[in-house]
């Protein structure tokens, strides 16, 4: 019987205790969510994936000034600028980014780029599903960054067009 008592003490009792907790929690609100099917609401200022925003007119906010690249502690942003022409206009003013790349493998999501941006073009939003199978896919190009993101329309306007960077004509 000694064996039984031992078994009760070592196996059954902990099991019951464990199930007991489960049973106790059954009545409470569930904390776990079914991740791929369900998504947890992120905190409002969560900094994940970068996006490049546009003005209401459809013009890109990014002027290719490279200040984000200068501010980036991980040196993961590469910007190449070019000149707008009246025929081919991407952003208000003289300058736009012809290439804008972020190496997401290097990015530490510190948000300095967002702070540095004079036009509010680059923002870090809540999309956190950045995993991929190929390294090359982590190089986010300008086209990818310009994708519309959920809730974009709801955002208050940042860095309204004004002063000298205003659209001419």
């Amino acid at each position: 019987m000694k064996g039984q008592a031992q078994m009760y003490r070592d196996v059954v009792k902990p099991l019951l205790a464990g199930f007991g907790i489960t049973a106790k929690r059954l009545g409470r609100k569930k904390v776990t969510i079914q991740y791929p099917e369900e998504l947890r609401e992120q905190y409002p200022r969560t900094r994940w994936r970068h996006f490049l925003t546009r003005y209401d007119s459809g013009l890109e906010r990014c002027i290719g000034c490279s200040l984000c690249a200068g501010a980036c502690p991980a040196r993961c942003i590469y910007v190449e600028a070019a000149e707008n022409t009246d025929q081919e206009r991407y952003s208000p003013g003289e300058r736009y980014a012809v290439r804008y790349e972020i190496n997401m493998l290097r990015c530490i999501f510190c948000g300095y780029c967002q702070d540095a941006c004079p036009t509010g073009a680059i923002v870090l939003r809540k999309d956190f599903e950045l995993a991929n199978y190929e390294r090359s896919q982590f190089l986010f190009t300008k086209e990818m960054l310009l994708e519309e993101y959920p809730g974009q329309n709801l955002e208050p306007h940042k860095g309204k067009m004004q002063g000298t960077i205003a659209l001419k004509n």
Partner: protein
Amino acid sequence: MATVAATDTVNIVINDVDLQVPKGELVVEAVKRLGHEIPIFCYHPRMKPVGMCRMCLVEVGFKQPDGSVRKMPKPQAGCTLPVSEGMVIYTDTEMVHRDRKGVLEFLLINHPLDCPVCDRGGECPLQNNTIFYGPSTSRYIDIKRHAPKAFPLSEYVTLDLERCIQCGRCVRFTEEISGDAQLAFRFRGAAMQPSTFKLTDFDSKFSGNVIEICPVGALTSSKYRFRARPWDLETSEGLCLECGNGCNVWLDHRAAKLVRVNGRTNEAINEEWTCDKGKFGHDYYNSSKRLTQPLRREGDRFVPVSWGEAYAEIAAHLGAKSAALVGSTVSNEGLFCLQKLFKDGFGSENIDHRWTRTLPAAGERVAKRHESSIASLEHKKTVLVFGADLANSQPIVHLRVRKGWFLNETRVVVAHSQTTDADSFANLLLSCKPGSLDDLAMGLERAVAEAQKTDVQGFASFKDTEKTTSVKESALREVAAMLLEGNASIVCTASIYNENKPVETLAALAKIAAATGAEFNVYAEGGNDEGAMALGVMTGRNTHEILQDCAMGDLNALWLVGADPLTLHPSRRLAEDALEAVPFLVYQGLLECEAMGYASIVLPMEAPGEHDGTYTNIEGRVQRMQQAVKNPGDGKPAWRVFSELLVRIKPGRPSFSAKEIMDEIAATHPAFAEATYDKLEKEGTPLKPVIENFYM
């Protein structure tokens, strides 16, 4: 004009620190001795102070006999105020800071503040001063001054009048330094703007400098426009090899690509200026026509081959009956290895680097080609520019000569058959008929001889000289008198070899120099031409003979090292015939070119900024340029190609680095004895004067 000739010192007090500074030194310079800084915009140490921007206001007082300090009621501009005995200067008082804030607020009210899109952003004095001294906010709520943005003032310079703070640096540069007065202020008051005449093309050979001295982004480079931001850039010390002056430059590169060239200070050569050829002429680095790998001709097309295959091909075809023609941007090391390769490897001596119409034989050459250093030209009493278009061929020498004229009352005499930029300030202009420079030199020699009362037999009379050259007797006598006053310099360039009877002309000038005690210079023209002369890269047959031999079929093989005879040689027909006829042609170069079409083997070469090397400028100054950018393809420096090939032909110890070769040069060429990599100085080391006829 940073310092007025300092004869004695005065005692002054700066921020309660007593010190002695040279009398007459400007306050803005004097405070630098203490490590303090006075913010400036319009002041530039190489130009006359004007006191326009008022950024440098300081409080100034004078010590009274009783020891107290009596301050002047108004703040004084530090950039126009020379120090004097007992002066007390405050650069850090509340009033000074208030004034700086005020001036910056004024400057910024009409400034567009488009720093994010401005090419100057990040290296802008206005930004820096605003951050250190400026107000954090503006009280200006009215409409800013507007002007069209990004106006193309020339191929190279873009003007943005909104950003201009009217400091006048650019205007003063064109007036005082380059002398073309292409820029001037128009209108007045708040509408004042610097511009060219009716905003027409900014036609200057030195326009690029205004971009660098502009303290804001009003004048920016059209070529660098939006290429990079300062924090994207890496900067390497470099040399410009567009001409033989050997200007020091900064090579700014981004992601291993050259994006911009800026002047680097070297007081001995270019001070801080560059010419437009040097500043904007480095397109070939990123050219789409760059050669990236060795090619071999197969029928009508080129097939890429490995270096080894190319070497084997060359080794098989080149021998005693081969020759090499060299361009002007090959480093000293490359030239030396080429000589070695041809002598030791192929057993041929036929190398030449000269492309002028006349190629003087050894006995006819001028013994000393550079007696005046570039820097010494500004202190000459008289400079005779003979048959040279300095602004085009030696821009930095041109600036020095003009500086001497502008600041030190150097008298400049220009003798030429064409109009040159130096005519505008020449004290005396000897404008002769085309092709009569030799007669002019002889006439001058007679004038000097007459002035010295020596024998004038055998000279043409002044009347005949006037008939042939159209230069009057009185003018010649005047020049002779000027030269005889001493401290004179005669400046010619190698371009004189394209004129009639250059040997006689130079002989006459050399005699004049000897008779008057003037320094005599025949400056080389190409990037490293002086190095080639010093190393003696002109043995065996000369350029004309080599091409003729090729055309006649007397030579089996020709190696073109960074040179295209079709553009360089005065006779295109001869060059065509030669390239057509020569059985085996090696073209080694940076870019695809016309001569490449005749080649059997094409070798890519590294551009000067892509490898380590030394270059000799016109005054014999050896300077080193280290690798700044990467070769875009599989190119190799010229010396490595020659060295590797030599090992294949004649087994021996190969050279591994440019340094080793320079040591070897120093050991074999006494002139280069001090020019090893260990001994080279920051500003370059002048060649050691050697026995006169060493390299003849």
